[in-house]
């Protein structure tokens, strides 16, 4: 007796939500399977997609990930890497970074960086969108359904503009970004899946470009972040840069010329030192060899450690501050979790052990743990699991500029999000109809030392004597760590219109324009596909018509008809050498129609001869 299957009940199968770790060096995607989160690998078993995007001279060939990596050396000015370092930044913020990368930015990069690639420019969210689209496709083809919804991670210490830029990237990639999750908290979700786990944990996350430290309290399945700190400009890239200058200086001294200006050589050196850095995490010694320059050198782990010691020390102050903010001492921390590729470095592990007096957890692959955690959060958001709940915090204080450029803090750092604050505003002069509010993020006293987020203008205030209007402005940091502002006239209760001028990042109009542009790209893709399909069909019809002409049945039609078939075939061949899929289809259809009569005759003939054979068989059979 078959057992009745009950497994079909439950939630209707709606779109799946994936978790994406959009990293400085590598990116990857994971999803929640029945037995827990799982990363999605390519055919070769590779989970990581290098965060590198390449566009060729004619802007026709787009390469992403592994394929783009080779171009770093052959065409360094067209291959963009470490784009995460440029997210939510303006030209003034990135001058130092630009000295170390071969690509260039266009003028007009004050509010948002614009990378110059040939005669086109791309902003960091657009470049990131290419990577996200790649991950989206990978997930869609693996899961066998179009994936539209995603959770994307960012460093915990990312500010509002950097988070918004990440969300914009998702939007441009055709993703509905359900949530921006902090990387260290995501990692803690992956580690703390066991609901019974309780206590204080510290997540130390040193990646390719950013450093985060988060202190969490785990209780009853609630992951409550107590404090977070970090440096969005500290990671493996910085170690690479120190190694690069070591090698470049030595080569320069040996050859007496400056090779730094040669971007291809620079990239060869970069690739080699990264390899050596990795090797020195497991061996005591390694050999650096840059072949085209006949450069060779032994390097010991001790030498590398001396080079990067100061960088690793820079992670210690945020750790101590986070502990202090959490109101805990190091010995109250029950567990320490390591996240990010750079935590494979033995020196990093030693220092972390010293600060927290604990052997850190390294069971999960530090490259994959963030994506796994994002998949857990994705599952929570899609209604799959209610056991776990993440309560995260805002990493930076939110303030408004007051008289004399002093910042008045309205939401303190490490406040659990969503968090809100209300402030009352009024006018300074009679009949004033607008009020400007400058919102900033950071811990410093003066506005000039904090990060400007946006200027909000309250508009359409009715003309009244100074000080009479009472406008209540509500600042709300949502669960993504992103600010929204709303205003209300207290007297009338009416919503007050607010005009937002973000200090950094893209406006909604710019995003819309980019979406249209990306549709254009999609259109190009469609055109390409149509051309391929048209050519395939044409070849089939051509082959069939040639075969038909070669058969005896062709004699049944006149020379004239045969000639018209040949003409139609010739015309189609000509169309095939061009790239107009419409013309190909048209001529394919023409050839098909002029050869139809012949095809029918051949068919009839075949039927007739089959019948004949059959009759013969029947005769024989009788």
């Amino acid at each position: 007796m078959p057992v009745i299957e009950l497994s079909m009940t439950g939630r209707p199968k709606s779109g799946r939500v994936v978790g994406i770790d959009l990293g400085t060096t590598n990116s990857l995607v994971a999803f929640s399977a029945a037995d827990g989160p799982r990363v999605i690998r390519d055919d070769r078993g590779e989970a990581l997609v290098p965060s590198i995007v390449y566009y060729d001279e004619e802007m026709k060939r787009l390469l992403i990930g592994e394929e783009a990596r080779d171009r770093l050396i052959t065409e360094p000015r067209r291959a963009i890497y470490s784009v995460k370092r440029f997210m939510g930044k303006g030209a003034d913020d990135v001058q130092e970074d630009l000295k170390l990368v071969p690509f260039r930015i266009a003028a007009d990069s004050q509010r948002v960086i614009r990378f110059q690639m040939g005669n086109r420019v791309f902003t960091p969210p657009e470049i990131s969108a290419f990577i996200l689209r790649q991950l989206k496709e990978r997930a869609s083809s693996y899961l066998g359904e179009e994936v539209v919804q995603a959770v994307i991670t960012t460093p915990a210490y990312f500010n509002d503009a950097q988070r918004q830029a990440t969300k914009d990237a998702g939007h441009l990639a055709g993703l509905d970004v359900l949530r921006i999750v902090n990387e260290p908290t995501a990692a803690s979700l992956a580690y703390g899946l066991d609901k019974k786990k309780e206590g204080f944990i510290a997540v130390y996350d040193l990646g390719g470009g950013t450093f985060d430290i988060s202190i969490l309290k785990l209780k009853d399945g609630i992951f409550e972040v107590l404090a977070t700190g970090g440096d969005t400009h500290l990671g493996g890239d910085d170690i690479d840069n120190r190694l690069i200058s070591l090698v470049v200086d030595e080569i320069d001294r040996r050859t007496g010329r400056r090779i730094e200006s040669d971007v291809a050589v620079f990239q060869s050196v970069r690739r080699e030192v990264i390899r050596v850095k990795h090797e020195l995490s497991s061996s005591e010694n390694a050999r650096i060899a840059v072949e085209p320059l006949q450069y060779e050198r032994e390097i010991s782990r001790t030498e590398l450690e001396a080079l990067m010691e100061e960088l690793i020390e820079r992670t210690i102050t945020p750790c101590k501050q986070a502990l202090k903010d959490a109101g805990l001492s190091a010995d109250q921390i029950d567990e320490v979790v390591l996240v990010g590729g750079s935590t494979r470095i033995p020196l990093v592990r030693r220092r972390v052990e010293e600060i927290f007096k604990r052997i850190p957890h390294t069971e999960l692959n530090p490259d994959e743990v963030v994506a796994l955690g994002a998949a857990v959060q994705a599952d929570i958001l899609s209604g799959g699991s209610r056991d776990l709940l993440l309560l995260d915090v805002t990493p930076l204080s939110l303030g408004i500029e007051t008289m004399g450029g002093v910042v008045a803090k309205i939401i303190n750092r490490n406040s659990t999000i969503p968090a809100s604050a209300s402030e009352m505003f009024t006018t300074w002069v009679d009949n004033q109809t607008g009020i400007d509010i400058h919102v900033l993020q950071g811990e410093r006293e003066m506005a000039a030392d904090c990060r400007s987020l946006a200027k909000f203008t309250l508009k359409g205030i009715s003309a009244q004597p100074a000080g009479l209007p009472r406008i209540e402005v509500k600042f709300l940091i949502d669960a993504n760590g992103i600010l929204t502002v709303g205003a209300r006239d207290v007297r009338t209760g009416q919503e007050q219109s607010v005009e937002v001028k973000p200090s950094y990042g893209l406006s909604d109009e710019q995003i819309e324009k980019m979406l249209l542009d990306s549709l254009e790209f999609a259109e190009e893709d469609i055109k390409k596909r149509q051309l391929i399909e048209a050519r395939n069909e044409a070849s089939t019809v051509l082959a069939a018509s040639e075969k038909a002409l070669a058969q005896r049945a062709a004699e049944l039609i006149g020379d004239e008809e045969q000639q018209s078939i040949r003409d139609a075939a010739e015309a189609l061949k000509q169309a095939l050498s061009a790239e107009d899929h419409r013309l190909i289809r048209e001529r394919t259809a023409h050839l098909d129609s002029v050869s139809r009569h012949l095809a029918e005759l051949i068919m009839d003939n075949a039927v007739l001869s089959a019948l004949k054979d059959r009759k013969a068989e029947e005769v024989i059979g009788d």
Partner: protein
Amino acid sequence: MEQTLERGRCPNCGAVASSHFCSDCKRIQPVRSNVDYFEFLELPRLLAIDEAALEKTFYSLSRALHPDYFMGASDEERQASLARSSILNDAYRTLRDPIRRVQYLLKLEGYKEAEKRAPADLLEEVFELNMQIEELKNAKKAGDEQEAQEARESLEEALTGLKQRLAGIDDTIFSLFSQWDAAIAAENGSGKTVLDDISELLSNRSYIRSLIREIEEEF
């Protein structure tokens, strides 16, 4: 305790709703007016709080109200979840910390934000301290390291004294918590004098804190 602030009709089914969720249709309710944090966290307006119980309430309300659980809900419900979650977090942050808690209670009871005011018996000391800070500044400017070191040492001593005084003020404030709670229970109107005392102590506290910060910045 009065429960008048948050009352209205459920926009979904029209039932009278005075909680986070409608008692009839169970939908999350929009925030209607200015919220009282004590009410929001289901607490009486008292100052002594069972912190473990408060955490428990915070966690269970988080599980009920957090936006994570309203992703597929209507726009109105998502808005309500966001608004209620942010109030929950703000309320918990405020009431969990005893100083913030009493500051908030004073505000509810109509007190203005405590201004910085030096305790009467500290005035002389403050005069002395300001001179020492000035000396340190001048010594630093003149590059006189020995002079600066001496000034630092005497300031260091004063700093320890100030920190002790601050701890003493906190203890006094906390000891007044139970007096307020008792006055509320007795309903004899004696709470007002307790709050007056606390308000004065908070002014002193804020003065000493900024003095400490000022000295530490000079070090």
